[in-house]
């Protein structure tokens, strides 16, 4: 028998996670529209792998499998992995990534709720470091033919026809390697497939993620602090630099609407487990992630810095939390005289 309180509000981890999955659906729909149905294959692949890995680890660790498997957290991780990996990544890349996330980043730390690092981002960072090439081949926008994509995932890869550097990758490659004359406008403007904001297609996907994020906010699953600080900081830093030198630094709209920025703002930096938890801490955490993302995007070797930025902030999260503890009831102002 339990102790007080005896009546509890109806809520559960499962319902939280299911609503997060629900919130991802608009983004996925738009994704399919622009990049083809391969992403659905990847999501299925990731989900199955995640559930199997989760079940196996739970069993190994002697936890009640059914109870934990139903919580849906493995599915959130799996979906986010699928959405951040290229949709035409070979099947084994997805599988290895998911395994790394679930086994190493989650269960070695004690499973749900105990992992200091964002499992999906561990998977991403691990795989892009291991297979930079496979992890940066994206299908060309609008190339939605299913058969060659499926072939890319499961068969021998014949890619040149269907792949294209992502806007971020193209920009990075042009600006930071051979061509000293390259400019942002030159790269993004010259290529007809890049839209005006974040790259054609990308901006619509980002908008759809934003919609899902609004749902999460409305459901009070996430608070405004994280997305606002993330997008705000990204806006500020990219805006500032592109004002100074628009030829070498892309505009803020580009940064926000391209790559994984919007997904990160609402679904990744918001991971409650591995992030900071105090209100002030959340602001610092997300702003830091945005700043690092911009730095890595603009100067680093990897095309998109979100995974690294999030991991770096995960590392700092415990310290951020410690130093941003809000004052306790009664210990605020008047408390000069004792303890």
């Amino acid at each position, binding site marked *: 028998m339990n102790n007080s309180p005896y009546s509890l509000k109806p809520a559960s981890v499962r319902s939280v996670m299911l609503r997060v999955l629900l919130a991802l659906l608009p983004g996925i729909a738009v994704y399919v529209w622009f990049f083809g149905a391969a992403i659905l294959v990847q999501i299925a692949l990731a989900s199955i792998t995640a559930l199997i890995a989760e079940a196996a680890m739970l069993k190994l660790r002697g936890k009640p499998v059914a109870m934990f498997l139903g919580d849906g957290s493995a599915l959130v991780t799996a979906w986010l992995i699928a959405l951040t990996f290229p949709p035409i990544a070979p099947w084994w890349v997805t599988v290895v990534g998911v395994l790394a996330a679930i086994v190493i980043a989650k269960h070695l730390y004690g499973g749900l709720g105990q992992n200091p690092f964002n499992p999906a981002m561990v998977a991403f960072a691990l795989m892009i470091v291991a297979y*930079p*090439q496979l992890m940066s*081949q994206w299908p060309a926008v609008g190339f939605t033919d299913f058969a060659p994509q499926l072939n890319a995932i499961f068969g021998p890869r014949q890619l040149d026809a269907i792949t294209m550097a992502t806007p971020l990758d193209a920009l990075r*490659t042009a600006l930071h390697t*051979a061509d000293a004359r390259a400019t942002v406008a030159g790269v993004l403007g010259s290529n007809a497939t890049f839209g005006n904001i974040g790259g054609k297609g990308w901006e619509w996907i980002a908008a759809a993620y934003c919609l899902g994020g609004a749902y999460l906010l409305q459901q009070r699953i996430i608070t405004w602090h994280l997305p606002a600080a993330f997008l705000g900081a990204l806006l500020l830093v990219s805006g500032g630099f592109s004002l100074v030198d628009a030829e070498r630094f892309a505009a803020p709209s580009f940064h926000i609407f391209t790559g994984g920025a919007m997904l990160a703002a609402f679904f990744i930096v918001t991971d409650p487990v591995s992030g900071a938890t105090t209100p002030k801490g959340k602001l610092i955490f997300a702003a830091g992630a945005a700043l690092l993302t911009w730095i890595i995007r603009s100067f680093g*070797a990897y095309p998109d810095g979100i995974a690294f930025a999030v991991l770096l902030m995960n590392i700092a999260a415990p310290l951020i939390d410690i130093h941003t503890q809000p004052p306790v009831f009664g210990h605020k102002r008047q408390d000069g005289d004792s303890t």
Partner: protein
Amino acid sequence: MSEPVDVDTRDSGALRISVRTAGIMLAFTLVFTALMAGTYKATAPMVAASALAEKLRLIGEVLPAGSYDNNLMADAISLPPTKALGLDDESRLWRARRNGAPAALVLEAAAADGYSGRIGLIVAVGADGRLIALRVTSHKETPGLGDYIDPKKDRNKSKPWITQFANLGFDSVPREKWRVKKDGGHFDQMTGATISARAVTNASGRVLAWTMENRERLFALPADGRYEESKP
């Protein structure tokens, strides 16, 4: 009051102990420094020899040993920092001769535009204006992706990527075709890591062009001479 006395004894004790420890320290230092210095002296010739051997090995990779008959090490000149070669520092250039006639030039060069920075090269150019061979001496390209430019890392062991430059000159591959295929040129590249290949290819083209231009002067300089850029 015992305080001041206490300090006094301490200080004099400290002095004594300082001298003693210094003495012991000195003794140990002398013995072990002597040991080390001795080893150094004893191994110095061998160390120098292996450094030389290393250089020769590198040169040997780009210039077959039988293709010349002079003492390369003796027939070297120094180069100032040269933009065309991508060099920011002084470097050496070795001249191979056969029966006294110019046979080849061996020089160091660099490509600054690798994926992760500078790629160091050593290049041998024949007196006939053909590139005899080139090797990567140092690079930071992504392991497993861009590092195929180094034949040791190239998975294609039978015909490493870098060997495709052997014995080509602007006569067989025109200057404007001295590029990777992706840029509309003649040379292969590995898909997914074009940048590394492009950097090496372009650098080799620049080196070749530069040597073609200066080859007579380079061969003509006295041994141990210094080449100066002839600026109009």
